[in-house]
Every structure is written in structure tokens, then in C-alpha cells.
């Protein structure tokens, strides 16, 4: 099955989930064409080839450097047409998901977002997606010729045995209507590790008592190369920025390792973290519900445990 993969680029580099999307597409056993919009370096193109793309279309137009959803959707539709591809695979992100929806509505394609695994093609084309905010999965068959698949982080493993490719210039025809939404500015925590993409996340809850106590959380995160997160009340009270709020109504994370420190483990918080591979809970209350969802637990005061943990992590390096 020939597939187009939309590559999300941040600061000239391909996003990890986009590379996973390339390897996902490669596993569908057909020609994989990757589409890169906006400025990107040759290194990025090589990386996309290594992950499994047979061809990389690149539209280096600077106007495409900002995540303009409509312009991206239009470019993807044009690329699918010129390449004759009927399947689109992309990362399930704040950019990827609306694009997926638009392309699917336009092509009357079968669509699945939040896809967690490679498809089962033994009978039809069946994908598994996460539903009920991580509390369950559904297996659905994508029946139409046109298919749009938005994958969650870790739905595929990035391969690196692909070939060296060089970019093919691509010039989508775009109109003013494609840029009707004016992006005035972006406010992005730069340099930090992005929470949805992080392999390790250290989150603090109301048990941390106040914003002035976040230093050990940050220090532990730094020692682990982790992103920082928090519970909803913590961001509601303004102790931490809103984009760090993890859970049902916040960011859903699926890291290798999730630390929950001073978080009780309300079901709405768990909904955002239960696809983590390993969960460590530190709470002074042995009855905290989070322990039931944890792999490892420490009953203790965060303010005692954290400094020791930071030292132990540093010592283990």
C-alpha cells in the first residue's frame, strides 16, 4: 500500500512521532513518500530516508514554516494526488489531528486517530486506537480506499535501516484562503523537553504545597533528562503553566517512565498517564489511590525523598 507521510518539523528537525509515522508506513509494505513543508536541512531528509521513506517531497517555502493547518492540508491533498497515494499517515498532535480530519473529510476517507499499533491486515485493514481517554481501546476496520491514520507516540519503532534519499522539490499551489488564519505569535517553552514527546516525565501535584517548592521536581527532571508535568489543580492555581497539566482534560503522556510526586491519583489524572510503560509514585499517604496504578511506590514525604532520589540518580550516571 503506497503511503504519504506528513512530517512535522520543529526548528528544522523532524519530530520523533513523525519518524515513527514513516516507519509505520514502511510496515504497510509499499512505497513511502514523506512530505516536508517549510525549512528543513539535508540531515533531516537523510533521517527520514533512514526511517523508511523511499522518497521525500520538500516544499522549502518559508511561508510554510508556521504551522498553518489549512495550507498544510491543501499541500498534503495535492501531494496525495500527484503521487497517487490513497493512505496518509501522520502524528496525532495539535497540528496533525486537525489536518487528518480535514483531509479525511475532503477525500471521504476512513479515518482513525490515536492509533496505538500497526494495523492487522489478516482480514481487512483493522487498526487499534485508544478511546475513553486511555481507559480502553477499540479495533476498527478502515474500509474505504482512502485512509487517514494519526498515530500516537510509540505506535511504531523508528527504523534506521532505510536508504539515503535526497529531497525532491515540491511546489504546492496555495492561495490566500490557505492562510486565512493569521498566526500572530507563538509562545513556546524552548530548550525544554516537550511533555507529549518526552521519554521520562516528572510530575508534581498539590502535595508539593506551592510553586516555590518546584525546584527539586525540576532538578530531578534535569538529572533524568525528563519533562516536567503537574496535576490539574496545580495548573489551575497557576503554580505551573497550563501546558504542563497532565490528565483527562490535559496532556496525555505515554513515556517510558512517569514519576508522580504528591499526586493522589484521581481517575482523571490516571487517564492521562496510564499508557506510560512504568509508573513510580511517591506519596506520604500509603492509601493514595495512585499506588494501585503504579509499578513502584515509595511512601514518604516528597521533601525528604526527592533530594535523596536526585543524588541517587546522579550517582547512577
Amino acid at each position: 500500500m503506497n503511503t504519504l507521510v506528513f512530517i512535522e518539523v520543529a526548528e528544522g528537525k523532524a519530530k520523533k512521532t513523525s519518524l515513527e509515522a514513516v516507519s509505520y508506513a514502511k510496515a504497510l509494505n509499499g512505497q513511502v513518500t514523506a512530505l516536508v513543508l517549510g525549512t528543513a536541512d539535508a540531515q533531516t531528509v537523510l533521517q527520514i530516508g533512514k526511517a523508511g521513506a523511499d522518497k521525500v517531497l520538500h516544499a522549502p517555502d518559508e511561508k510554510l514554516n508556521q504551522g498553518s493547518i489549512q495550507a498544510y492540508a491543501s499541500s498534503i491533498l495535492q501531494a496525495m494526488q500527484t503521487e497517487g497515494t490513497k493512505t496518509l499517515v501522520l502524528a496525532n498532535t495539535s497540528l496533525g489531528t486537525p489536518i487528518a480530519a480535514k483531509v479525511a473529510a475532503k477525500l471521504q476517507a476512513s479515518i482513525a486517530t490515536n492509533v496505538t499499533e500497526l494495523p492487522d491486515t489478516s482480514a481487512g485493514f483493522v487498526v487499534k486506537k485508544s478511546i475513553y481517554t486511555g481507559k480502553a481501546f477499540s479495533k476498527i476496520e478502515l474500509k474505504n480506499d482512502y485512509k487517514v491514520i494519526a498515530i500516537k507516540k510509540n505506535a511504531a519503532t523508528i527504523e534506521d535501516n532505510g536508504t539515503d534519499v535526497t529531497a525532491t522539490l515540491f511546489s504546492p499551489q496555495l492561495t490566500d484562503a490557505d492562510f486565512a488564519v493569521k498566526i500572530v505569535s507563538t509562545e513556546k517553552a524552548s530548550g525544554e523537553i516537550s511533555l507529549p514527546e518526552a521519554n521520562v516525565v516528572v510530575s508534581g501535584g498539590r502535595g508539593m504545597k506551592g510553586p516555590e517548592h518546584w525546584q527539586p521536581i525540576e532538578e530531578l527532571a534535569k538529572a533524568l533528562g525528563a519533562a516536567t508535568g503537574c496535576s490539574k489543580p496545580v495548573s489551575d492555581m497557576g503554580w505551573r503553566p497550563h501546558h504542563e497539566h497532565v490528565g483527562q482534560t490535559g496532556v496525555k503522556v505515554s513515556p517510558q517512565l512517569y514519576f508522580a510526586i504528591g499526586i493522589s491519583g484521581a481517575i482523571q489524572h490516571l487517564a492521562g498517564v496510564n499508557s506510560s510503560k512504568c509508573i513510580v509514585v511517591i506519596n506520604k499517604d500509603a492509601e493514595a489511590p495512585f499506588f494501585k496504578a503504579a509499578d513502584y511506590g515509595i511512601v514518604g514525604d516528597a521533601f525528604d525523598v526527592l533530594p535523596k532520589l536526585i543524588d541517587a540518580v546522579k550517582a547512577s550516571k
Partner: protein
Amino acid sequence: MKILVCISHVPDTTSKINFIDNNTKLDVNGVQFIIGPYDDYALARAIEIKEANAGTTVTVLNVGPADTEPTIRKALAIGADDAVRINAEPSDSFFVASQIAAYAKDKNFDLILMGRESIDFNGGVVHSMVGELLGITSLSPVMKLELEGNKAKLAREIEGGKEYVEANLPLVLGCQEPIAEWKIPNMRGIMSARTKPLQVIEAITVNTGVSLKAFELPPAKGAVKMIAADNVAELVNLLKNEAKVL
């Protein structure tokens, strides 16, 4: 100004999810249904706009069978003026989007507000599909919405930050906090909701490209391993050598 708010009817966030009929149907036994939490933000913002702009009407819409009506009445109690129920099982996102688009097509709504995602299917796609089907701009997830005449100033959440954008009405938006504070219906609202119009219309036929094979629950978690608070080195050791995540 005319505002349409699309609400989903979903299990309360504390619900335990289980399936019946050979894993093809949600077990609704003991499940309480609510307005989708994100849809509740959309509704709250719509009511705020109505309160600030005389002559604004807010219509709520749900695609669902008759048992969603108490949820729709709740939205009326919160302050919507009238309601529409499109009588069909909301089987998938394209089906729902097609119903909403068919209803809204000739109604000239200035704003169609939805939640960023439903908390049952979590598609996060209905708003963008409706926008595409109607040929109007859609944006999600929107955490701030201010109106200046025909222009909307918005903040959209992106990974690790925010994007400030401007766009002209009409717009379809998927909303999330902190766009507004959830509103709780008061006694007067609950009384008046009983007599507000709730129109039931039949669904259009849509060819959907997906079919459900089965639902599945995540594998049960193994027992937690407890480590003494004065032995954190052991935790690091286990994370490294047992769980292999460090």
C-alpha cells in the same frame, strides 16, 4: 450573533469502562452520563458571549438517541436558548460531522463551538470535519476566544506552548480550558429549561468508512512494588535493571 454549541453525551470522567455483548457495546450499568467536559467549556464561553452581546442566541445540538435528552436539557438549564437533537446513534466521527454540517449548512451561524475532543471516542476531529464540510475555518484546541466585531482573536494550544491567531467569523472551534469557567445550572435555569424548545430531526444517510470490530480493555496492572523511603538507591537500581527504563 448566532452560536451553535455541539455537545456529546459521555460517561462521567470517574466511570469505570466495561463492555458487554462480546465486547461490542459499552456497559452503561451504573454509568452516569454528562455533557462532555470540553463541550462544557464551549457552552460556557457561548453563554458568556451571549451575556455580553444582546441579541445573541445559543443553540445546542447533539447527535444521539432519545436518552441523551436529559443531557441536552442540562445545557438548556445552563443557558442555551434552544436545542436540536439529531436522532441517530453517533457511530463515528464522520457520521456525526456530516449530521452537524447538514443541519448548520443554511443557518448562518457565526460561531460553531465544540469541545476539543469527546471523552468517549477522543477523535478530536469532528470540528475540523464540520469546518471542511461547510467550507469555513476551523481551529482546535482553542484556549482563549475574544471577539472584535467580525474578527476573533484566539489562543490555540500547541505542544509545549501556545499559538496566538486571528481569523474572521464564521468559525468552527474546538474548545478547552481556560476558555471559560464551567457553569452550573441554577434553579431558575433548571425550571426554564423544561419549556425551552428541543427539536428532534431525523438523520441524513451517510456512508461511513469505518466499522467497529471490538472493544478491548488494557491489560491489568501487576502489583506495585514498594520501596522503603530511605532506600531510593534501590528504586534507581530497579528502574535501571528490572524495568529497564533508565
